[in-house]
């Protein structure tokens, strides 16, 4: 689809400022080490199961793009400090970098952040989690294979019965 669209549309010169090719990260604000860490955090939040997890879908790159391009300085600081704090805590809690921890250890650590009494830690976690969920749900893989997004529904039906699936799923 992406390829087809690219073929269909010839971009005029004035449009070049904002095509996906040119809106690249000019000043990525994370080091590559931090980027790897971010990937591991995202993967812990949404892991690979029988379908790809956040890391394989490059959700961390999306997160870094949003934080770099759309967030203000103080939110970026919170973000960077949060990453550092994760590493520190990992050393304290399981004596090795976050990425070397097992799933249980990583999950416990992130859960601890989510419930932290330190506002900065809590805020960091909710930022990462929110962006991970968004990046994952809006990824091409999920939208095409799992949630079956269609640009063209071609219709609007105002009153259809609630599909059985959703009803049976009330827990």
């Amino acid at each position, binding site marked *: *689809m*992406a390829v*087809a*669209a690219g073929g*269909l*549309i*010839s*971009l*005029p010169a*004035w*449009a070049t400022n*904002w095509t*996906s090719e040119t*809106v690249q990260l000019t000043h990525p604000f994370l080091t590559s080490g931090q980027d790897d860490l971010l990937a591991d955090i995202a993967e*812990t*939040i*949404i892991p690979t*199961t029988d379908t790809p*997890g956040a890391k394989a879908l490059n959700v961390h790159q*999306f997160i870094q*793009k*949003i934080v770099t*391009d*759309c*967030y*203000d300085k103080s939110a970026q600081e919170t973000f960077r400090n949060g990453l550092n704090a994760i590493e520190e805590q990992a050393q304290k809690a399981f004596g090795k970098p976050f990425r070397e921890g097992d*799933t249980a250890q990583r*999950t416990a650590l*992130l*859960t601890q952040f*989510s419930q932290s009494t330190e506002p900065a830690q809590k805020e960091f976690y909710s930022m990462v*989690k929110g962006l991970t*969920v*968004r*990046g*994952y*749900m*809006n*990824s*091409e893989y*999920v*939208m095409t294979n*799992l*949630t079956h*997004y269609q*640009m*063209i*529904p*071609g*219709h*609007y*039906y*105002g*009153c*259809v*019965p*609630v*599909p059985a699936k*959703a009803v049976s*799923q009330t827990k």
Partner: protein
Amino acid sequence: MANLNIDARAQNTYDAIVIGSGISGGWAAKELTGKGLRTLVLERGRDVRHVTDYPTTMMQPWEFDHRGQLTKEVKDANPIISKCYAFYEGTQQFFVKDAEHPYIQEKPFDWIRGYQVGGKSLMWARQTQRWSDFDFDGPARDGFSVDWPIRYADLAPWYSYVERFAGITGNKDGLDTLPDGEFLPPHEWNCVEKHFQQQVASRYKDRHVIMGRAAHITKPQPVHLQQGRAQCQHRTICERGCPFGGYFSSNSSTIPWAAKTGKMTLRPDSVVHSIIYDEQKGRATGVRIVDANTKQMQEYYARIIFLNAAALNSNLVLLNSTSHRFPNGLGNDSGVLGKYVAFHNYRAGISAQYDGNLDSTTDGRRPNSPYIPRFRNVYKQETDFLRGYAAGFSAGRTSRANQNGIGADLKQNLLNPELGGWYVGSHMMGETIPKETNYVALDSAQKDPFGIPQLKISIAYDDNDDKMVKDYQEQMTEMFTAAGFTNIRVRDDHRNPGLDIHEMGGARMGKDPKTSVLNKWNQLHTVKNVFVTDGSCMTSTSTQNPSLTYMAMTARSADYAVKAMKKGLV
């Protein structure tokens, strides 16, 4: 040398010139070329061709770097335009950026503009209701403005004319306040909207909830297929430009139609500076433009001129067209040019929940929603404020995933969202009163990048608007409560004037040249070969969306202009 000048002049001479290629200019171009006039269309922005110049129209959500979100750089650089709901990563290219075209806010005013071929017709929300006699009679009845020189009956056939061509979906509702039009099949209701409609109908004789009337082709007719347009596919990403031509825009409809006649010359990147008035001849002879690329001045000539630069810009052009005869702006003997600007009040909204109809939901997307026509002060003055408001209304159901937890459980939850309850919402569209104190003028010192004086905008709400906000909130709360909606929340976001994008007036129509600028044919009272048919001509603002009326007004005026030209009257 003399010959050369004459040649150049002949080369730059047309039968008609249209200034602006947006919703109204597109119609002027179509009508004038259709009647055989060699027409030059001058557009300050770049060319935007149907389909090929809609760079984001086929992009999937994941293809946007920021998934639609604006970057901080864009937001910081554009505090005004960033407030517009339709401005996002996929539509940025069609909106005027704050720094590019400066203006002076004597009072806060969010001026939302689209400078390109097609103007704002590319990004508009496509709501198209006719105005009624209550709107055209209104000022005469309650005395808040000058009397309109026309009535609904003058415009009715022209509404039909433009509706058939543009393609308007709607239902024939038989209401006095909102005359029926030439409709394509209406969009579907959902059950909660239907429920609200019935509840309102059962309680109030004079309040109605109807399906919105919108410029979408729900069932193409031969005239739409001839335009190369197809049935709307319900993508609801219209503001990026629609490759199907599913909605009406100048780009998909009127401009290519005018081009097909072979009579149109479209000149993008041409910023009109002023209209040239010839004192000897006692008429306008042409326009001066600044070429946006070379910044060179250039003149073009024609027998008639249609000014369609959108409300405030048309005021600017007229104010800037000074001569010995018209030192205060073309046709401005009355001194009212630039004054009595009015707009729509979109400040208030209401939202709520509904716990019924949980066994049903919706499927697909609908680029339209129900509408509540004005019901206040219609048949008599019943409140302590003048005029009234219409409202948008819609209901929907979201599916939400439980986002608690982490890991495989979270993933499982995300992929198995549960349907939430119904939510309902509405927003007001209030009529504001044209006042002398709401005006635009030229700044004597500051120039724009083309050397043209900047527009100074001085427009504000008054207590009539505040009262209307309060009344809307009260009445809608009452109606929502009656319909069994719960968790009702009202808001007043105190947004600046302008964000409604329905600015009107300044060169108003009227019977009396002493108190108005245009006559009943949209001609300048005193310069008969200049016609102004965009929002600047509006004497009052009604509660309905304005653009369909600009279209009808333009078609009517163009018809008159050509006839008058043939009779040698202009």
